[in-house]
């Protein structure tokens, strides 16, 4: 099982980038939650534990040759579907949404796991089926069903953010696999129609979020509060920032959710544009490295696998940052390696493990 490539071809660049970003994230959490006090384990320490666990998982994932996953993919997929149905039947309800299954020792969020499973499933599908002139509408039917069934179950929970992200990840992979031009146009029209019809299917709080995104002043103390306070935090940071531990928006608790979804606001307030620029450069480097790994993967399955993980990271980063700086509606998507949260950390690190896996098995020998 152990193979020498684990040591000789290990992707030190990737792991260094990941560790660096995670450390910046932990430091930021230290500042964001410093005013909390109390007897509980500090958030930043917990995040370090999660990151340690994540590293172990990533190493575990990269030990087994990713090519074996190809055959397990369908099993993962079916189990995941079962879990999603399980959520709807015996799930735990937190804040009006049912997303978790309590296994006693761990609270599992099957919709998070699905991100990885969809990547594996799609990688297998697109590496096998490769129409010469790209997919047409009919050809996309099977991938659409693969992603559509679980997404429907997730929307039922309801978890619009995750459903959307899974769609985006799958869509990116399909797009890369190649879609005919007229099919794209067709899909665009279809998407518009669905969006129009979907508006009426949205829950009140989801519709509220979109309306408030379009005009946060609509409800400055209610649902607009998050985005207004976040923009104030980011904007007041200026070019050089207010300094570590000196962000008034975060230290005086004006900024809500500042250890989870809005962790970047704290960073932008305290480190300013210069810090944000460096952080974004770090993330872009990670993404480029992911694309680079895909580019030189040993086979098409590996390429799509790396591409899918990179797409997952990309959409998380873009949707989170876009939300925090007022470009996108507030949809509760964490910033990978930066926002506090065990589930997000584990999912991200499984992805990182897959990237490492593909990266170090790029050589045939």
């Amino acid at each position, binding site marked *: 099982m152990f193979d020498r490539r684990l040591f000789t071809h290990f992707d030190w660049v990737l792991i260094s980038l990941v560790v660096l970003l995670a450390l910046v994230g932990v430091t930021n959490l230290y500042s964001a939650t410093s005013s909390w006090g109390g007897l509980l384990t500090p958030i930043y320490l917990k995040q370090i534990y999660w990151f340690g666990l994540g590293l172990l998982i990533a190493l575990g994932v990269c030990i087994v040759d990713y090519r074996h996953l190809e055959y397990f993919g369908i099993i993962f997929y079916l189990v995941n579907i079962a879990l999603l149905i399980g959520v709807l039947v015996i799930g735990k309800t937190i804040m009006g949404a049912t997303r978790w299954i309590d296994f006693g020792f761990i609270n599992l969020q099957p919709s998070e796991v699905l991100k990885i499973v969809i990547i594996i499933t799609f990688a297998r599908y697109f590496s096998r089926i490769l129409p010469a002139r790209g997919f047409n509408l009919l050809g996309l039917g099977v991938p659409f069903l693969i992603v559509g069934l679980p997404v429907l179950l997730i929307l039922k929970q309801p978890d619009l953010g995750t459903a959307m992200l899974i769609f985006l990840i799958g869509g990116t992979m399909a797009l*890369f696999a190649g879609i005919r031009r007229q099919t794209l146009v067709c899909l665009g029209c279809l998407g518009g129609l669905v969006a129009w019809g979907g508006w009426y299917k949205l829950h009140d709080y989801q519709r509220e979020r979109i309306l408030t995104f379009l005009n946060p002043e609509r409800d400055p103390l209610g649902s607009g509060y998050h985005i207004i306070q976040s923009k104030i935090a980011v904007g007041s940071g200026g070019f050089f920032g207010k300094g570590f531990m000196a962000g008034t928006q975060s230290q005086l608790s004006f900024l809500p959710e500042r250890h989870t979804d809005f962790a970047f606001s704290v960073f932008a307030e305290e480190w300013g544009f210069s810090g944000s620029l460096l952080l*974004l450069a770090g993330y872009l480097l990670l993404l480029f490295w992911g694309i680079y790994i*895909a580019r*030189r*993967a040993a086979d098409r399955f590996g390429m799509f696998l790396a591409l899918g993980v990179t797409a997952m990271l990309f959409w998380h980063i873009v949707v989170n940052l876009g939300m925090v700086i007022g470009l996108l509606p507030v949809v509760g998507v964490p910033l990978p390696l930066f926002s506090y949260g065990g589930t997000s950390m584990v999912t991200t690190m499984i992805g990182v493990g897959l990237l490492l896996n593909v990266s170090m098995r*790029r*050589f045939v020998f």
Partner: protein
Amino acid sequence: MGLNAGWDSNSRLGRRFFYLSLAAAAIFLLLLMRLWYLQVISHERYSELSEKNRIRYIPITAERGPIYDRNGVLLVDNRPAFGIAALRQDVDDPDLLLDRLSRMLPVERDALQQRWDAGKRLPPYRPILLAADVDRGVMDQIQEHALDLPGVLIDVRPIRSYADGESAAHLFGYLGEITEAELENLESRGYKPGDFVGKSGLEKKLEEQLQGTDGERLLEVDVRGKELRMLKTREPVPGDKVYLTLQRDLQLATEKAFGDQAGAAVVLDVHSGEVLAMVNRPSFDPALFARGISGKEWIELLQNPRHPLQNKAISGQYPPGSTFKIVTALAALQSDSASRWTSVDCTGSITIGNREFRCWKKRGHGKTELKKALRESCDVWFYQAALETGIDKISQMAFDLGLGNKLDFNLNGEKSGLIPTREWKRSVYRDRWYDGETVIAAIGQGYVLTTPLQLAVMTAAVANGGEVLRPRVLRRIESITGEVLFEGEKDLLRKVEIDPENLAAVQQGLEAVVNEPHGTGMATKLKGIKVAGKTGTAQVIRRKSAEEEEAETGKEKTPYRFRDHALFVAYAPADDPKIAVAVVVEHGRHGSSAAAPIARAVFESYFAIEPTKKLDNPGFLGD
């Protein structure tokens, strides 16, 4: 590159990887542009918003400037007013708390509930004011039970206090909460809703000097409004110190002399025009306004038939009655229409055209020359003199002596009075001037109206040899550091050219009024100081003479509002005048009996003369 089975030679895939990287970079560039917009271009705006979030300004009300009399005696000051407030976050059971407070405070339970409910709209950690300006006893009780009243705070702010209560209230004026219209004008000078500003009198006129500059405390608060630390304190700067020309003991003595009577009195320094006392009766308590007057109290003041809010000394317009004979006499002498020896045989009336004009003394005064005419206030002598002189010269003399025009006093609301002229008659009544009107004007009736302030200025001019001085009440304004910002100066409006002999003739007549037998002003005669003066009785409405009315209805039965106004003007000492006084007692009937004793009290106070026992016989009743 790697040995990956050669499939990456597919140029189509290579292009896709390129576009993919490009798309990622482009989207990141978009994010960076947005960050640039927020953090660099809009930085200032967001910085401000973040400061607003975190910093709370607590205004500290500046003390209004104190007001002193001419000798530095404090007249108007500030005192701390204690309010009872509650911090909502610290109150577990509002009902219980309000129940307990309603038993201690002079506020109804319902009113407390109302204020509490209204206060819920305030941001958190902002105390809700439940009772303003409670007295010491209540304060002590609240503090004693502090443990049973969690969340209750004591709020302290300065409010106006008045050393002598109602005294000189019209001069000081009163304060009131700023109105929306006032706020619009004053907002640029740092006023905020809820501030108190001067609404009348000196408080209004000197608002800018008295207001001071509010201070502020800058507190850092967290999202719940909890105060974390003090960032900065800017101490308030009290308003400027105002020194008046008023003399407190004289003011008080004059007010006391009025008793229950309504009216006004003005005491002037004849050489400087400084107002030594300005009395208005009845008065009001300005402290009511300082703590916020209730609607009921306000209506009561407005509906009082004796007009306690009116500054009658400057805005009350009264017919001067016989006090105007001073003007007529000077006009006649100066125009050579009469001399001090001109003798008229008063038979009790004179007929002009087909109308009979009566002297106040039915039986007549007999042979009368100027001195006797002034002393006994013989109307017929002045009718005759006025006919000779003509209205033009009488009006001119009146204007010259300061009547008929505003005197540019330090307060708003001054009235001009009225001195009739031919042109005035033509423009108002579209009619010519009649001789009958001349004789009526000569005794200060008819159209003639004057304010007590104007009468005092006129009297001072007669006393000082013809100098008409602008009356003023501001002596000095000093900043809190002692820097002199304003210094009042003697302001000569004009010097009336009067032949010294003519002036002396009139002055001697005025001395006779007080000091000779049959004088109408004998109630003012003093030991040691020679007073000169002139009584007056002003008819309120056209009707039969007062004497006839009284004969018919009985003296005490004349309704108050129909009774004549009593006037008296005087100066002293006669040989070296120092102060001049004008007194109007509304519906006081006779100048000799109602107004002269008040002037007497003024002189007694000013010259520090032992008050003599009230005379049983006020001398001759006459007008």
